[in-house]
């Protein structure tokens, strides 16, 4: 292993360890952290309202989890989508139409079923798991999006939460949501898909905001803590970038 590799490895390890320690510390301080306010993200405000409205109106929430591969780097955004699904299910479990989750990847569909079942069981233990509540609608990006379209049209969906790993095919889903007049809140990790979402979704989530869903929906102190740690590291990185750029410039001047 070259010295550069070792250096990069150690740097990465130190970065991860420091991030993890701060995350644990801020999680332990959970209660106090909850009190501190966050930047307003309209999408989450509308989402909270939409969940309540869906329960009252007897309509469904639809959470589209995308096609993130759980064993890949895009699994993070898939996990963020699962967190939103869990929060939405917990809030809407009392509804006679519990939320429905669609995904385009096998492992994610499996996790969404587990999440839905456990949430619904926690509310009503005698409830039978419904395989169609967490369904796989297609295995290729466009077959997945095409499979979601009938769900949006047929399942009395009032709110579409599109949060996961998507490509440009997400435009088909947001378009379907707009056609049925439902609220579409969308976010993804793919920047090109974010561009499509920005143009087509009613409430887009850009960039890092996608990963803040758990904290904004009150998932757990760990989510709030992670935002704090992200902020800390954000400024650390900014300072590092500025100093590094200056050093390179000065070094040459």
């Amino acid at each position, binding site marked *: 292993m070259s010295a550069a590799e070792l250096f990069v490895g150690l740097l990465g*390890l130190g970065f991860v360890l420091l991030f993890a320690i701060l995350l644990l510390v801020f999680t332990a301080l959970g209660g106090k952290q909850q009190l501190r306010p966050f930047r307003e993200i309209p999408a989450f405000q509308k989402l909270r309202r939409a969940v309540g409205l869906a329960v009252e109106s007897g309509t469904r929430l639809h959470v589209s989890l995308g096609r993130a591969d759980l064993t890949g780097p895009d699994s993070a955004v898939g996990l963020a989508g699962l967190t939103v699904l869990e929060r939405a299910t917990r809030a809407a479990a009392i509804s006679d139409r519990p939320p429905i989750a669609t995904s385009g990847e096998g492992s994610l569909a499996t996790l969404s079923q587990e999440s839905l079942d456990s949430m619904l069981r926690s509310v009503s233990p005698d409830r039978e798991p419904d395989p169609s509540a967490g369904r796989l609608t297609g295995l290729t990006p466009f077959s997945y999006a095409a499979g979601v379209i009938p769900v949006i049209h047929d399942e009395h969906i009032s709110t579409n939460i599109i949060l996961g790993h998507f490509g440009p095919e997400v*435009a088909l889903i947001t378009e379907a949501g707009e056609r049925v007049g439902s609220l579409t809140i969308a976010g993804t990790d793919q920047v090109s898909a974010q561009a499509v979402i920005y143009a087509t979704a009613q409430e887009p989530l850009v960039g890092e905001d996608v990963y803040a869903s758990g904290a904004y929906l009150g998932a757990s102190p760990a989510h709030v803590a992670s935002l704090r740690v992200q902020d800390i590291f954000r400024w650390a990185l900014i300072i590092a970038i500025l100093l590094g750029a200056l050093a390179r410039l000065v070094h040459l001047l």
Partner: protein
Amino acid sequence: MKAPLLLVNTAIAISAGLLVLLGYLFPALGFLSDALLRWAVILAGFALLVGMANLLSVHIGNLRERKKGSLYSLVLIVAFVAALLAAGISTPTGGAAMWIFQNIQLPVEATLMAILVVTLAYSSMRLLRRRSGILPIIFVTTAFVVLIGLAPIYAYGDVPFLSSLRGWISQVPAMAGARGILIGVALGTIATGLRVLIGADRPYGG
């Protein structure tokens, strides 16, 4: 039963994750993560089969219950079986499989992509009505400039300024913004991943 299982699951997730992470950061320790990565790759394939079973069970359920649109479910199931047999008999790149792929899957996907032309045009036109402020205007203006610089003007040819402007936009400000977004996404990804690795998030249930 539930609590112990959750404990075991969390232990499995954390230990497997830490081993793979070490292998990521230090290629010399790749031997720690190689086996686990290969297992994960194989399991991803099994997960796809599980998802497939779910897809079929939903549509078979539609057929059983004579739900609205059960005809479509029938079509889906028949198409699935046909493609499975075709690819199974004549390998995934065999004649039958390729015929189905080229004449059914590819045309439909390409057409779905093609109709985005209309969908996105309609959405982008309405964007300035739906959202107020300067950002949508910047968005549309940038899209306009980049589009017009993507290709030479029909029957006229290349307009260097437009292509240069488009090149500059996509290479400088757009790349700067993309870099900021990517770094932010990386931070979010690290936070989300670490929540799993410290056991704060347990999406696998138990």
